[in-house]
Structures are given as structure tokens and as C-alpha cells.
């Protein structure tokens, strides 16, 4: 069978797209946005029910909607988009044909089938078991089967990605090492394989248990292994969105990583240590020793935290260097003031870095500290944290990337002019508010996944302090703002992709790689002293360093505030 070697070159960006990879990326991205839309509609129910003044849904519908919201957003939207990113980082960036496109389509349709089956089980009404589906609470077998099929499809996609790397190496489509963004994508894919293996180890027995073929699933075993899947899948997101940050800095500014060594080593730390950090979900569980908890959450997690702190410096640092080289070299922050704040991909990535670091990162470390977890476990602080990491961090970064991909991949102009930039700010600010106020409510003890914080009609009810109610109202308002931003995103992308103005490229045709793609790009030789004459105070990126110190100061203060708070609660041992 002949291999399709047809490529096209994007006239604006110079990127090269392999024909089958091009189509797969588009279909995966469209599927992602469809599931984002479903998850977003469900989010209306979640926001308007937890906002106690509205209290829209009854408990049964609320728990059902919350389950489906979590799965569609956290699994289906993000992973479909990540598959598109994997194909982009392999086939497009390495100028290589995609390995086995037919297998990639098989993976795609398995993922679609799995996602639909899982949604079907939740719509049935007997599978409102939340994203975590903790045994011994059981769901309909199609719930687990859907997730398993989806995971198998995603695994196939990961191997298509690895295969493409092998092909690129064999056919010498690039010289030297893979680009940093591809390196980040490899990190994400390796973590994904580990994640899916953990998922299989726990979900397959759970499926058999739901069919009555296995007697008993131990609740602690379930939680321990499930989080190897549940948390690790969030590490895929971290690796993927950090890769997108680097890609964004490269695309918008032509920024070059400050040091390939530092950035790549930081990605390696993710591979080595992030998964063990899944243990921080079990800090308030019986049957596990403190030594086990401390080992897994500190030794392991803090090296991963270190990696994120490094990326948090190097991405803005590389932007600062690029801006200073363009002449914005005055003072500490001219590079930032003169940044393209009206450029949607830049704004998205900048808010993503800030939100992920300040809100998501710091709160994540609090929850992952063995003793501090006692005053946080299962409160709304947890959803507050992951709306900062997965939504503000990952989703917003992906939104920014979309505005770059619409002209490049779909060959359409982004519709509605500046609306895309507004969308980024509205969504970013709304979601930052959601994260912040949910954390505030959690600090005051408000539980997550809970229909009624007023405990109306209950003989032993509890009255939360007024501040907690205020936090919930503010979270509700911010939730509506974020929903508006999300709706704008869906409207802009759908309109652009299906009805938007086509980007005309005169003389456009696909050409076969053998004659068309041209010479392999040689990496430019490093110019000695390229950074000479920029920056100040003995550093090339002093502004970023100051921002990093601001971050560190808030981190340290907030960390010890929480210890202070912990020291006031009842002694226990």
C-alpha cells in the first residue's frame, strides 16, 4: 500500500502539514470543542445549583450533571485536544509523515465511541458516581466500558505519536535533537501511557465487578490505583500546556528557550516524579503510613514542583529576552508593558502562566502537604485548585493555541475581529474568580460535591458562616462570567471553522514530500554573546526574576499562614 506523502506548507507560518495528520488534527480538535460545549452546558447547572440563592436543580439532577461535567471537561475535551497537540508536535514540527494514519483513525473512533458510551451511562441516571467513581459505589457497566474504550483509543494515539518520532528519525526529517515543544509532548505521551496503564489496572476489575463477575473491590486499593490514573492524567495536561506555553512564546515572539538544558531537564523531572505525587489524594486515608505519605508527596512531588517553578521562570524569561532583543530593553518591565496585550494567544498564555502558578500551583502544594491536607481534604478548596490548574492553566492555554491553529490548520480567519482577545480576558478573569472564591469557601469548610450547604430541614444541620455564603455567591457570579467566556470561545471557533472566511493561498497545492518539502532545516549556529547588551543587574531577564520573587514571597507567606491556621485546630494524632 502506498504511503501518503502529501504535504502542504502554511504560507503564513511556514509550517508543514502532512495530509492525513492535517485531517486527524482537525477532527480531534473539533471533537474536543464539541465535548467542551457539552461540558460547558452542564457547567450552567453546576454553577446555578451551588449558588445557593438560585439552587436550580434537584439533588438527583445535580449529582448527575456534576458527574457528566467532570468527565466531559476533564477527560474528553482535554484529551481530544491533547491528541491534536501530539500530532502537531510530531508530524508538523518534525516535518514528518504521520505513522499509520489508519490506526490513528481507529483510535479516534474508539475515543468517540467510549465518550458517547460513558455519557450514555450517566444520562441513564444510574451512574451519578462522579469523575472518581469510587468503589464500592457502583455505576452501570457502560460507564467503565466507555472509559476503557476511550483510554484504549488514546493509547493508540500515543503510539501513533511515538511511531511518528521513529519515522522522523529514520527518514531524517530533522537534524540534531527534537524541538523543545516536541520534547514536552513526548513527556506528556510517556505520562499518558503510565496513566492509561493505571486506569486499565483499576477500571477493568471494576467493570468486571459491576457485571457481577468479581465479588469485592477494596475501597482503599481503588483509591490508591485510581489516583494513579486520575492524578496522572492531570500531569499529562501540565506537560502538554507547558509545551504549549513554549510553543506560544516561540510563535508570538520568536522566543528561544533561555537554556534548552534547563527546560528539558525540568520536563524530565515531570516524567520521573509527578506520578508518585498522586499519593497526595490519600493523605487523609487510613491504612497508609506517614512515611509512605511523606515520601511520595515530598521527595517526589517537590521535585516536580521544582520543575514547574523552573518552567514558570523560563517561559516568561524567554519572552523577556526576545522582547529585549527587539529593543524593549529599558528598566525592569518595558518588555512586559510593550507586550502584545491585544494578541489572543499571548494573552491566553500569559494568564495561563499566572493562574497556574499563583492560584493552582501554590494551592496544590498546600493540599499535598500531609498535615495541611487535614484542613482542606474534600472541601471546595479542591475544585478551586483544579479549576486554576486544569481550566485556567490547561484549557486557557489550549484556547490561545486554537486562535493560532484556526488560520494555520483550518485555513480560516478567526471570526469576529477582536472578540477572541476579549474572550480570553473574560474567561481568564471569570475562572480566576471561580478558583479563588471556591478556595475561600473551602477554607471555611464548605464541602465539595454537595447539593445543599444550608442543610435545610435537617435535624442536625450546620450553619456555615456568612463569609462562606458570600464566597459561594461570588463564585457563582464569576462562574457566569467564565461561562460567558467559554460560550464566546465555542461561538468564535465554530463560526470561524465552519462559516469563516477562507485564508487564500495563491497556487496552493499539496506536494509529495519526496520532491516538495525541500531541504531539512539546519539549526542555526549559536551566536556567541547573543544575549550581550540586554537586561541589567547582571541578568538577561531581570524583570522575570523580580516576578518570580514576588511569586516566591506569596508562596512562602501563604504556606506558613496555613500552618498557623492548622496549629489552631484540635490536637490529634
Amino acid at each position, binding site marked *: 500500500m502506498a504511503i501518503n506523502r502529501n504535504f502542504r506548507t502554511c504560507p503564513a507560518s511556514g509550517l508543514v502539514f502532512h495530509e492525513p495528520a492535517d485531517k486527524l488534527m482537525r477532527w480531534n480538535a473539533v471533537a474536543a470543542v464539541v465535548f467542551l460545549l457539552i461540558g460547558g452546558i452542564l457547567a450552567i447547572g453546576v454553577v446555578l445549583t451551588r449558588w445557593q440563592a438560585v439552587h436550580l436543580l434537584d439533588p438527583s439532577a445535580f449529582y448527575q450533571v456534576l458527574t457528566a461535567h467532570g468527565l466531559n471537561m476533564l477527560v474528553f475535551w482535554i484529551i481530544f485536544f491533547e491528541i491534536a497537540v501530539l500530532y502537531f508536535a510530531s508530524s508538523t514540527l518534525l516535518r514528518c509523515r504521520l505513522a499509520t494514519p489508519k490506526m490513528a483513525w481507529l483510535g479516534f473512533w474508539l475515543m468517540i465511541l467510549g465518550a458517547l458510551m460513558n455519557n450514555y451511562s450517566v444520562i441513564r441516571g444510574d451512574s451519578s458516581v462522579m469523575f472518581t467513581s469510587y468503589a464500592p459505589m457502583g455505576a452501570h457497566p457502560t460507564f467503565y466500558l466507555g472509559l476503557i474504550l476511550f483510554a484504549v483509543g488514546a493509547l493508540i494515539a500515543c503510539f501513533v505519536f511515538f511511531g511518528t518520532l521513529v519515522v522522523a528519525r529514520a527518514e531524517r526529517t530533522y537534524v540534531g535533537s527534537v524541538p523543545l515543544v516536541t520534547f514536552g509532548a513526548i513527556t506528556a505521551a510517556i505520562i499518558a501511557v503510565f496513566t492509561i496503564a493505571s486506569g486499565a489496572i483499576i477500571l477493568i476489575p471494576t467493570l468486571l465487578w459491576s457485571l457481577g463477575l468479581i465479588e469485592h473491590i477494596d475501597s482503599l486499593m481503588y483509591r490508591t490505583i485510581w489516583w494513579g490514573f486520575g492524578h496522572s492524567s492531570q500531569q499529562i495536561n501540565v506537560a502538554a500546556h507547558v509545551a504549549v506555553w513554549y510553543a506560544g512564546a516561540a510563535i508570538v515572539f520568536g522566543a528561544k528557550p533561555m537554556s534548552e538544558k534547563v527546560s528539558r531537564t525540568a520536563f524530565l523531572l515531570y516524567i520521573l516524579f509527578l506520578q508518585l505525587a498522586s499519593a497526595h489524594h490519600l493523605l487523609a486515608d487510613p491504612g497508609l503510613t506517614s512515611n509512605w505519605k511523606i515520601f511520595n508527596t515530598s521527595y517526589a512531588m517537590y521535585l516536580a514542583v521544582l520543575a514547574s517553578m523552573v518552567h514558570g521562570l523560563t517561559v516568561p524569561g524567554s519572552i523577556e529576552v526576545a522582547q529585549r532583543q527587539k529593543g524593549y530593553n529599558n528598566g525592569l518591565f518595558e518588555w512586559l508593558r510593550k507586550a502584545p496585550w491585544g494578541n489572543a494567544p499571548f494573552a491566553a498564555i500569559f494568564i495561563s502562566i499566572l493562574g497556574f502558578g499563583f492560584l493552582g500551583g501554590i494551592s496544590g502544594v498546600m493540599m499535598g502537604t500531609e498535615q495541611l491536607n487535614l484542613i482542606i481534604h474534600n472541601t471546595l478548596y479542591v475544585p478551586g485548585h483544579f479549576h486554576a490548574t486544569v481550566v485556567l492553566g490547561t484549557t486557557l492555554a489550549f484556547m490561545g493555541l486554537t486562535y493560532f491553529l484556526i488560520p494555520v490548520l483550518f485555513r480560516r480567519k478567526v471570526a469576529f475581529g477582536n472578540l477572541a482577545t476579549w474572550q480570553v480576558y473574560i474567561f481568564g478573569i471569570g475562572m480566576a474568580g471561580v478558583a479563588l472564591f471556591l478556595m475561600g469557601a473551602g477554607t471555611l469548610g464548605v464541602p465539595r460535591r454537595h447539593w445543599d450547604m444550608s442543610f435545610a430541614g435537617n435535624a442536625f444541620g450546620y450553619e456555615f458562616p456568612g463569609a462562606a455564603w458570600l464566597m459561594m455567591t461570588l463564585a457563582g457570579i464569576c462562574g457566569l462570567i467564565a461561562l460567558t467566556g467559554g460560550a464566546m470561545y465555542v461561538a468564535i471557533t465554530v463560526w470561524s471553522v465552519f462559516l469563516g472566511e477562507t485564508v487564500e493561498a495563491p497556487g496552493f497545492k499539496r506536494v509529495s514530500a519526496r520532491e516538495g518539502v525541500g531541504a531539512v*532545516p539546519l539549526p542555526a549556529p549559536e551566536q556567541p554573546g547573543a544575549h550581550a547588551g540586554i537586561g541589567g543587574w547582571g541578568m538577561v531577564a531581570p524583570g522575570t526574576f523580580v516576578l518570580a520573587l514576588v511569586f516566591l514571597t506569596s508562596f512562602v507567606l501563604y504556606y506558613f499562614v496555613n500552618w498557623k491556621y492548622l496549629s489552631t485546630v*484540635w490536637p490529634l494524632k
Partner: protein
Amino acid sequence: MSAILPPSERVWWKQPLDRVELIWIVIALVWCLIMFFMMPYWHVYGKQNLANEAFRTTPAEYLKKTEAMIAQYKVREEGAEGQKVPVVAPPAGADVYLVARLWQWYPILELEAGKSYRIHLMSMDWLHGFSLQPENINVEVHPGYDHVLTVTPTSKGTYSIICNEYCGINHHTMTSKLYVK
């Protein structure tokens, strides 16, 4: 030359570090080490630590111990007619059994401020979340694992126990009181 192209150095780990990166890595590493040492430090000098003490048992066995304790220390009953829950006032140092089940905490505890109690937590069915308000102490409750916490209430008052691990349709009704005298 950027993050989406191959690096200029064929061997990327030979590329030198920038000074700003090196300084930041050292600072961040020191901070990570401080955070690491805080956890063992708190085990030695702090007062709020979770126990390593837990036993495997069965719901029937655990419920038997609970009923025996209720028979011994029961002082009264509380709650709506037809849904009375016993209140127990165990002596300091006693083993206190608290049952978590769909959708109830059983029994209600009455403790004394400044005294220590060995509180056992276990679920009879699904996962539950022990959440003491407004103290905001939160512990996961598993079926089959009897988790022992030595707790010392510090101040008098009426506290609430709510469930904060989702446990089905009536999850939000799973609440109880805890009295400290």
C-alpha cells in the same frame, strides 16, 4: 531558532545555563527542601498529625463494638421522632466508635474539653468524609478500615459533623452533632 525548531546545539545538555536560571533553581530547590522538612518537623513538634493506626475489620464486627459502647455510655437520645440517635458521653481516654453509613453518623458524641479520646472511624457501606465544622478537620472514612484518631477537643461548644465525600443522592443530609462540655 525557537522552541518549535530543533535546538542549535546538537547535544542539548551541553548548552550552558543562564545566570538568572541558576539563581532561581537554587532558590526554588532550597524552598522545596524547607517544605519537605516541615512535614517530619510537624510530626515531632506539631500537634495535628494523622495517626498511622488503622485496623482491618468487618462492618458487623465494628457495629458490635459500637453497640457495646452505646450500651455502656448512653446518656440520652436526640433527633426527630422516629429517627432518634443515641448520645454517648464516654470517659476520657476511652475508645469511641463512630459509624458512618448511608446517610447517618451514629451515635452522637459528647466529649469533654481538654481530655483525649481514641475516636474510631469506619464506614458500613461506601466511602464517607468525616468533616468537623467549624474546626474544619477532614478525614476520609473507608469501609473495612477502622481508623483511630486520638483527638483532644480544645474548647466547649456544639460542633457539627458533615459528610464531605460524595455518597449518593442524600449525601447532603448526612450530618450530626458533636458536643464538647
